């Protein structure tokens, strides 16, 4: 199979760049200033209000990336399989500690995942087992790109959600943020050709910052910025785009601050960065900003050494995701939007079945995905990969393609035809009610 390296947009019709070359001033929706919209359409505010309550805008998606390659075998554990204990004499979780999900199948959760177990028992948590793709790539970067772009065979510049947003552009008419990443750089997942998605580091950073030594000057400086940008009449397309985007940046930052200030919750999120990122996700989703898809990541899963004992170790990471997602779910319930949110986790690969010589595990292939929400069909989906029939590297052979999971979410949750977005037909799964 030839890895084909080519920018995606060249294969598509008119790109944003082409439009600009043709002299058409195209402003992507996330950059569209509400001020400008109101000039075009005085009833814009009411249109905006409608847009956020019609179509599928009450189907929200949160994507959680477990960065580094999560050890699926020590997450969803085949605790009755002797091959597991043979392959991992020092790293296996003892069967009596495993939180059993299915006694017959011998499948259970790592003991740190106590809240996952609770949510599973309540039918709120679906586990898709053995997710991967053919010819698994074991490079972090490349495999992450594959999962994010949903294109295992070529390098492209757009992600699966980015392409979804491009396809569904009309749905996001006037939204402050159709989609957003929190913390870190914008993942490929959210990159499209037309809709531009921001990456919000924190409430503090997504605003116009001024000299902290003179906080009393903040207002004057922002007002001067806005005065300059509002009064600049530019016929140059670059300058006019910069002026409009600058105004929109400051305005959307104000929207975000306002949404965050209105947010209140009795839920106490843990203090770790991941849980705080989830809190920011909740603040945005509950803030009426028209946001449909959000992405947040937690790193550290590249556990090559001492994975049960190091300072940042696998059990601790599992505890972070367990307590973080539990707080997030309770917050959704408190805000009455637990019916409207579907959360999925993914990692670029699982890890090798056999432990290595450093009390760790090396890069592997298939791993489970968690799907959380009131509208999921809880339980185990797909098959646990075989521990007796491994590939040439000693890695699991996937039992389901990650693009089947995406197709299910696109079709049954986001109500969109998945074929064009995924460039192919993938058989759907059954984890959404």
């Amino acid at each position: 199979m030839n890895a084909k390296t080519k920018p995606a947009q060249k294969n598509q019709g008119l790109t944003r760049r082409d439009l600009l070359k043709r002299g058409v001033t195209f402003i992507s929706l996330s950059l569209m200033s509400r001020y400008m919209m109101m000039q075009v359409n005085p009833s814009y505010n009411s249109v905006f209000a409608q847009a956020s309550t019609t179509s599928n805008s009450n189907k929200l998606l949160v994507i959680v990336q477990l960065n580094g390659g999560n050890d699926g075998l020590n997450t969803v554990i085949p605790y009755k399989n002797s091959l597991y204990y043979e392959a991992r004499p020092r790293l296996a979780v003892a069967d009596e500690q495993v939180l059993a999900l299915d006694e017959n199948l011998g499948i259970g959760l790592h003991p740190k995942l106590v809240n996952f177990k609770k949510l599973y028992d309540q039918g709120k948590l679906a586990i898709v087992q053995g997710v991967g793709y053919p010819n698994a790539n074991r490079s972090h970067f490349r495999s992450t790109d594959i999962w994010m772009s949903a294109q295992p065979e070529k390098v492209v510049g757009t992600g699966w959600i980015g392409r979804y947003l491009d396809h569904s552009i009309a749905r996001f008419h006037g939204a402050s943020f159709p989609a957003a990443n929190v913390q870190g750089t914008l993942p490929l997942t959210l990159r499209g050709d037309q809709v531009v998605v921001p990456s919000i580091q924190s409430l503090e950073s997504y605003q116009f910052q001024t000299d902290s030594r003179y906080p009393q000057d903040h207002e004057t400086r922002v007002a001067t910025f806005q005065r300059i940008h509002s009064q600049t009449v530019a016929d140059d397309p670059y300058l006019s785009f910069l002026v409009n985007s600058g105004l929109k940046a400051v305005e959307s930052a104000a929207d975000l601050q306002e949404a965050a200030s209105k947010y209140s919750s009795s839920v106490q999120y843990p203090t770790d960065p991941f849980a705080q990122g989830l809190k920011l996700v909740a603040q945005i989703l509950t803030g009426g900003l028209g946001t449909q898809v959000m992405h947040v990541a937690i790193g550290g899963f590249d556990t090559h050494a001492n994975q049960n004992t190091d300072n940042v170790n696998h059990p601790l990471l599992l505890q972070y995701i367990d307590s973080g997602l539990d707080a997030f779910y309770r917050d959704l319930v408190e805000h009455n939007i637990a019916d409207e949110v579907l959360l999925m986790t993914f990692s670029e690969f699982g890890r090798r079945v056999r432990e290595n010589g450093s009390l760790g595990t090396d890069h592997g292939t298939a791993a489970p995905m968690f799907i959380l929400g009131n509208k999921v069909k809880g339980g185990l989906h797909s098959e646990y990969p075989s521990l007796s029939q491994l590939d040439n590297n000693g890695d699991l052979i996937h039992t389901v393609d990650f693009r089947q999971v995406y197709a299910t979410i696109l079709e049954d949750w986001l109500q969109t035809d998945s074929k064009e977005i995924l460039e192919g037909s993938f058989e759907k799964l059954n984890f959404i009610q």
Partner: protein
Amino acid sequence: MSQFNSVQAAHLLRRAGFGATPEQIDDVLLLGREGAVDYLIHYEQIDDSAMEQALAAQNYLQPPAGQPLSLPAIQQWWLFRMLHTRRPLQEKMTLFWHDHFATAVSKVVSRELMLQQNELFRRLALGNFGEMLVEVSKDPAMIIWLDNNTNVKGSPNENYARELMELFTMGINDVITGEPNYTEEDIHESARAFTGWTIRRGRFFFNSSQHDYGTKTFLGETGTFNGEDIVDILVKRRATARFMSKKLLEFFVYPNPEPELIEEVADVYLNNQYNMMAVVRHILLMDAFYSERALFANIKSPTELVIGTIRMLKATATPHRVILGAMSLMEQTLFNPPTVAGWDGGLNWINTATLLVRYNFANGLVSSRGGPLATFDPNRLLEGQNLTTAEQIVDHFLNVFGPLPVSTATRQALIDYLNSDGPFTLNAQTIDRQVRGLIHLILTLPEYQLN
């Protein structure tokens, strides 16, 4: 003798480098247009050993024992060069080639190989394009990036052969006539010529047992071609001359250059045996380069913005990880372009999040009074000036950071900002407060985002 004023000198130093201080602009102004361009072009005559020594002392390329060379380390190594070099055009061309032959660590993985490729771009920055193409074809990072290590006799991988024509030399269609430059058959045939060009132990290796020695027909020529022969055929094509001329004109002059300009530069390329020094020299001396249309016609890339701002502020700064983080958030991670086509550039740099990062990065620098990020002292930009009124101060700084061609309304808003607490007077306290604030506002102007 061609006209050469300070606006043009500042423009030259922005495009052929990363921006300059008023003193540096005055220095090149004395050389005249041709003298200034020759000074920049013949950078090998400029002693840059002080930078090399300072760079070596940073030990970026010596990771702590037991740790691999990291991506931030090689990014810092390169940014340090850009910040402190006396040969700005060499680094600017290195950046051009990095975007042209865009190769990403995401797939190559090895930081050592990425660095080695970067050194190739620097070594041949203004060298012969044919030589560059041969060396790039043998470059281990490129071989990994475009899968030529799987390109073997009987089962060619066409990835490199295709991109060599589509992105590195001619483009799919002739940029003047629009005629197709090659066929799928030309891709098959040239891929055969590159079979067996692989790597072994991190170096180029010609695996003769995997090389297809058969006869190939490529772009109408027939022979038992190898990769060098393919490059020889490509480098002399007028389509290549036009494609490279257009790309360099867009990089240095303005978007969508006129066909006549492309043809003029293409002639220079062909008449000088693909010597990039002659081509870039010609471009930097063209009247079009100094025309109204060219001034501020591009959007600053994150690299240009970050390096230029630090240089123009005369700030003391090393490429701290905060700066690397800001550049990634501005969506330019050096050594990791998004695709083989490089960064899309232009308006694609701009969205609400990247703009806020630009504004806040500027605020961070301007508010740095010491600490790990930078030290910025506004007095260094006021030395030798005799400024008293708000008008004079605004005009001075609009000049320092451009000169920026702003409207009278923008100028007035900045003056009003200084006067917002009553008539402005310059003293230590107002320098620390309002002058820093003024500089931040200037760095957030839409005009400042332009190059």
